[in-house]
């Protein structure tokens, strides 16, 4: 059975994330109306669009937090929409960072980072701790290892959340409006962290309202409205020469 349905092994030259005609209904409401796109390994894509256009739902479908109604999603060859999907295998490859950080409040920052590799991947505790400390350094939070989430600022918590996700060594990172709940002055520190990740070659999918950041960091921009991708392209052409009137209207409001 497993052999019969096993897909051809994924190779890095194929898209690491692939969406084909994805539909999603919440009851009678169609939130995604046939979304398709490919993400190559190491690519950074930004999904922008007005509120309620299905951006968050779209990104949550990719790690199966939200089940799709129809269509195909592949992550490194794993069929996400398959009812027999091994969710844990998928989620080891895909990290996710949320708007509200969602750190575990009863654990210190370092413990938050260490928990999943120890309990999910059953890795050696000392090795994980070493890696966790390195990650805390990477997100510039040295000295905050023993602080509880409640003692950290929003920007610091969000960077812990990024470190926590990276500790699983994912191949793809999903960012769901990660700066939307932050103060303007702390937004920057989180964006710097994400930019460094992108420069390190991490495949990143971001839902964001930070247009300048998207312009700087993205390889490709997707503009969604009412459940469809209205327009997409590299940031240079997307921002300077949008073709669709909806894109133009949106950009005129946010830029």
């Amino acid at each position, binding site marked *: 059975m497993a052999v019969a349905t096993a897909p051809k092994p994924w190779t890095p030259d194929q898209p690491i994330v692939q969406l084909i005609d994805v539909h999603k209904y919440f009851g009678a409401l169609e939130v995604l109306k046939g979304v398709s796109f490919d993400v190559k390994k190491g690519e950074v894509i930004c999904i922008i669009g007005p509120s309620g256009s299905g951006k968050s739902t779209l990104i949550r479908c990719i*790690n199966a*937090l939200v089940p799709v109604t129809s269509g195909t999603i592949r992550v490194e060859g794993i069929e996400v929409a398959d009812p027999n999907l091994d*969710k*844990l295998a998928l*989620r*080891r490859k*895909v*990290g*996710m960072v*949320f708007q*509200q950080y*969602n*750190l*575990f*409040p*009863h654990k210190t920052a370092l413990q938050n980072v260490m*928990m*999943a590799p120890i*309990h*999910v991947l059953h890795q050696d505790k000392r090795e994980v701790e070493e890696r966790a400390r390195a990650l805390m350094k990477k997100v510039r939070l040295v000295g905050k290892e023993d602080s509880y989430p*409640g003692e950290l600022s929003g920007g610091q918590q969000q960077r812990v*959340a990024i470190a*926590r*996700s990276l500790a*699983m060594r994912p191949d793809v990172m999903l960012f769901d409006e990660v700066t939307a709940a932050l103060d303007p002055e702390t937004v920057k520190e989180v964006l710097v962290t994400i930019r460094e990740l992108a420069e390190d070659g991490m495949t990143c999918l971001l839902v964001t309202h930070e247009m300048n950041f998207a312009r700087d960091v993205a390889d490709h921009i997707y503009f969604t409205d009412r459940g469809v991708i209205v327009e997409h392209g590299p940031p240079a052409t997307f921002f300077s020469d949008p073709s669709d009137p909806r894109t133009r209207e949106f950009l005129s409001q946010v830029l």
Partner: protein
Amino acid sequence: MSTKDTQMGADAPLPVLLPFRIEPTRLGAPRLAPVHALLFGAGLALLAGSAWAQADNAQLPPLEVIVKWAPLLLSGFAFNILISMIAMAIGTGAGLGVGLGMISENPLLARVCWALTQFFRNAPWLVLLFFVMFLVPFQVTIFGVQIPLPDWVKATVGFSLPVMANVAEIVRGAVRSVPSTQWEAAESLAFTPRQTMWRIILPQCVKRMLPPWMNLYSLVTMATVQASIVGVSEMLTLTAQVHTAEGGRPELFAPLYGFALFCFFLYCYPIDRFTARLERRFHIR
């Protein structure tokens, strides 16, 4: 109240934006201090003394009666505490299971656990106690080994049933009160639902569950005297026996039962205060 209002106005420029909070009501200053216990004891002694003054001088004065029987009465009280602790331990273990069962994905298990909880939560404790006392045999035979079930064991089981139901409700409420985003975060880190429950959700619940759990413990301790009705030799039973042994003198009634009241109060009141303190601390955090 007015001073409070002006104070708030000075601290926060926009008090309208502050979260609405119901101020805990304090009736005057009902804080009890050791001195109150002393006064209570003195009152008892006075009562006993005056009652004794009218009695036959050949008999022991009430205070001496209490001192004389104190070891026996206190051993009875220790038995009350033992019953309450075991009932609480069994009830908490079972209640945790039933409470988690209520929020289980399995609809049948959830229905059964829900029904169990509702039944035992809404039945009088004394009726449950009678039920267990007369339904469970005095001994059971397992693999040819006869295990006697003394009355106090049955009574303990009887008390653990309502404890189970109440703990189940506490657990269910606490788990539900953890934001669903915690589940999402754990899920996206590839934790299994079981791991999420035990490593992430339940540890966060302990803090929320502790005050109501301790409250329940206090209630159980006070309820254990009901075991005297079914003949368990706990403090109340012993008090009645001591009273009879001393000739059933009416002037001993108040001191002896007053002593029992006093012991329970001395045990439960600190628990109550500690619970209140925990509640205040957790509210702030």
